[in-house]
Each structure stands twice: as structure tokens, then as C-alpha cells.
């Protein structure tokens, strides 16, 4: 019962490749879920009740169904209707859609938190509806929702480990291979656990710094 980590050293480059793939997936999925989430947040705060209802059904559905079920739905289902995409693309798409549901919540509350006075001031100044939204509402909403968005992003990183179940060899997938190669599953997964925890900790530090920087002119209220 002794932990000997030197055994894993030759496998480090291989696992780094997996980590790189995880990073790629996460960054792409972050962008995807930002776009999906922003669009859905706009729909959920729009004046059109049909649009509002459709968007909240989307968010409700994708937050209450396990990610692995959504993933299998896309991975096994899409070829059925003639769409052949690889595991990487499927993973990014599924993560973006699931992440978008959570992101839309965050941005929506960011939009709703804007004081009506600001919007009225913009209208009085003669800005069109569209200009008010893109120049006033969205920048403020995005800026104040950096921190909650950060926890969504960290969740995204943790969720990306599930992509190993659809044959995508990201960090968890490569660790699985190393574990069965070396017959040292305990050591491999302990290292992996600590690696993920360190990674998400660093990301959370980064987000806190970004949040402080973007909101530096808002005073103490948001710190």
C-alpha cells in the first residue's frame, strides 16, 4: 500500500495531450454556450410571450435532464437522421446546448438586475430599441454576470469529463487508458482528481480577478 507516482512519468506527455483536448473542448463549449445563452436570455426577457415561453421550456428541459442522456441522444440520434459528425463536434455541441441553458439563466438575471432608470434614460436620449439593447443593456448585464458565469464554466470543465463515454479521449479518457496500461488505477485517478481540482481552482481565481477588473468602477457593491 505505497503510492509510487514515478510509474506515471512516462505517460505524462500522453495525458497532457488529453488535457489539451479538454481545454479545446471547454473553450469552444464556453463560446458556444455564451452565444446560445445570450440569445436565449434575450428571448426570455423579450416582450413576445411565445418567444419567452419557448426559451424557458428550453432552459427548463436541458437543466433537468442528465447531461449523459442528452449526450447519448445526440451521439446516437444524429446519425439516425443522416447527420454524421465526430465525437469531438458532438461533445462541443452538446456541452454548448446544456451550458447555454445555465448561461441563459445567468444573463437573464443580469438583464433583469439593470435599473429601469438606465433604460428610460437611454430611451429619452433617443436611442432605438436595438441600440439600447446592444449598447446599454447587454454590456452591463454581461459585465455583472462574470462571476456566476465563472461557476457555470467550472461546471462545464467538470462535465466535459463525461465526454470520455462517447470515445473522446480527453483528460479522463486518456487517464482511463493509462490506468488499464499500468494496472495502477488508484494512483492515476488520485492524480487526475487533484489535477481537476487544481485546474478549477486556478480558473476560479482567474474569474474573480476578471470580475474585479471589469467592475472596478462600480464601487464596493459588487465585490
Amino acid at each position, binding site marked *: 500500500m505505497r503510492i509510487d507516482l514515478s510509474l506515471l512519468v512516462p505517460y505524462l506527455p500522453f495525458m497532457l495531450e488529453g488535457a489539451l483536448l479538454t481545454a479545446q473542448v471547454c473553450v469552444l463549449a464556453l463560446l458556444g454556450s455564451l452565444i446560445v445563452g445570450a440569445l436565449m436570455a434575450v428571448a426570455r426577457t423579450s416582450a413576445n410571450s411565445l418567444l419567452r415561453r419557448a426559451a424557458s421550456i428550453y432552459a427548463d428541459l436541458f437543466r433537468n*435532464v442528465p447531461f449523459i*442522456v442528452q449526450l447519448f441522444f445526440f451521439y446516437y*440520434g444524429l446519425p439516425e437522421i443522416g447527420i454524421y459528425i465526430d465525437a469531438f463536434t458532438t461533445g462541443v455541441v452538446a456541452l454548448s446546448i446544456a451550458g447555454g441553458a445555465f448561461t441563459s439563466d445567468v444573463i437573464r438575471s443580469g438583464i433583469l438586475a439593470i435599473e429601469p432608470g438606465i433604460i428610460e434614460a437611454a430611451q429619452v436620449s433617443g436611442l432605438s430599441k436595438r441600440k439600447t439593447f446592444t449598447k446599454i443593456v447587454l454590456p452591463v448585464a454581461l459585465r455583472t454576470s462574470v462571476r456566476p458565469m465563472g461557476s457555470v464554466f467550472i461546471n462545464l470543465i467538470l462535465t466535459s469529463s463525461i465526454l470520455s463515454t462517447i470515445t473522446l479521449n480527453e483528460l479522463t479518457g486518456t487517464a482511463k487508458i493509462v*490506468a488499464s496500461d499500468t494496472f*495502477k488505477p488508484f494512483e492515476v485517478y488520485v492524480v487526475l482528481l487533484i489535477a481537476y481540482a487544481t485546474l478549477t481552482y486556478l480558473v476560479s481565481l482567474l474569474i474573480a480577478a476578471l470580475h474585479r477588473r471589469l467592475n472596478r468602477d462600480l464601487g464596493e457593491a459588487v465585490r
Partner: protein
Amino acid sequence: MRYTEFTPFDIVLLAQGLGVSVGLFLATTVIGLLIGTLWAVVRFYRVPVLAQVITFVAELLKNSPVLVQLFLVFFGFPAFFHINLGPVEAAVITLSGNTAAFVYVIAVSAIESIGRDQIEAARAFGLTKWQVLRHIIAPQAMAFAIGPLTGLLVNQLQVTSLISVIGVMDLTKIGNILNLRTLKPFIVWAVVGVLYYLAAKLIAFAGATLERRLRAHTAWKGL
């Protein structure tokens, strides 16, 4: 002979899978609540060393993917500690630990939500630390924690879907089996998704009802 069509027996199969998922969810929720609360009490009493160890373990469990924790327990523990561990035991250990870590955080913030003046007043009346915890803090903390707990449990139900990866016959695994047999991914995963969705809604409803009960004493009763 191949049964590629759906048969009435598939409904029984799905019900069995749902039963396993819900059963494991309930069992791990109870264990997780007990352990998490115990950890919070240890922190409340400021037990040296133990309190720091618990905080560290909880952070590690919160910030790493459940899938990796599952692999560590299922593949790592038997290899390292030379014990026999079935998939169900591994699933119970992992999910209980994961739930406990999140419950711990909620319980700590619930305890801290109660004003110092109340505790000081109770101590001045001669109540022991345990009596303060039992009669002053616990009832109020419970009402405070029930909201976040409901959110957590809805999430933990979805996390149970991951145990299908290590071979527990839960709802997701049954979905996998049906998918491989009938090759109708859209129908199978949609049905599985709907079942999870309904279960999640049931938990949310139960949580909201309980919260209303616990908060009844603060509700406006009229003059």
C-alpha cells in the same frame, strides 16, 4: 432471433431502471445529508485539525468530476486496498461522499446565517452549546437551507446517471440496452429523458412544499 421491436416488457425494464436510480438517489441523499451535517457540526465546534481536513476534502470533492471520483472508488480502491467492491457499493460510496461535500457547504452557510446576537443571548440564558445548536440554530438553519438543498438534490439525481458507466443497472443503463437492441435512439433517449425530467420536477415540488411548511412561522398572517 432478434427483438428489434419494442415489447411491453420494455416498460417493466424502464420501471426497474427508474426504481434503481431513485432508490440509490434516496439512499445516498440520506447518507450524504447525515455525513454533511455531521461535518458542519464538527466545524461549528471548531475541532482542531479535523475541521481543516474536512474543509479540504469537501473542496476536493466539489471541484472534481464525479466520473473521476467514481473511477477512483470502483477501480482504484479494490486495487489499492485489496477489498472487494461491487458497482452498487462503489456508486453508494461515491455519491454519498459527493452529496455530503455539497451538503456541508450549505449547512455551514445556513449555520452562519443566524445572527451572533441570537447565539449570545441564548448563551447568556445559560444554554449549553449543544442546546443552542439544537433549539436555536437547527430550526432556523433548516428553513434557510431547504431552498439550496432542493437545487442540490435535483442536481444529484442527474448525477446518479453517471453510475451507469461502471455498470449499475440504472435508468441510463437500461436506456443504453434498449438503444442497442432496438436501434431507435431518438425514442429511447427521449423517454429516458422525460422520466428523469419528471423525477426532477417531483423533487423540486417536494422541496417547495417543505420550504413553505418550514417558513410558515415567518409568513404574514394578517393583523
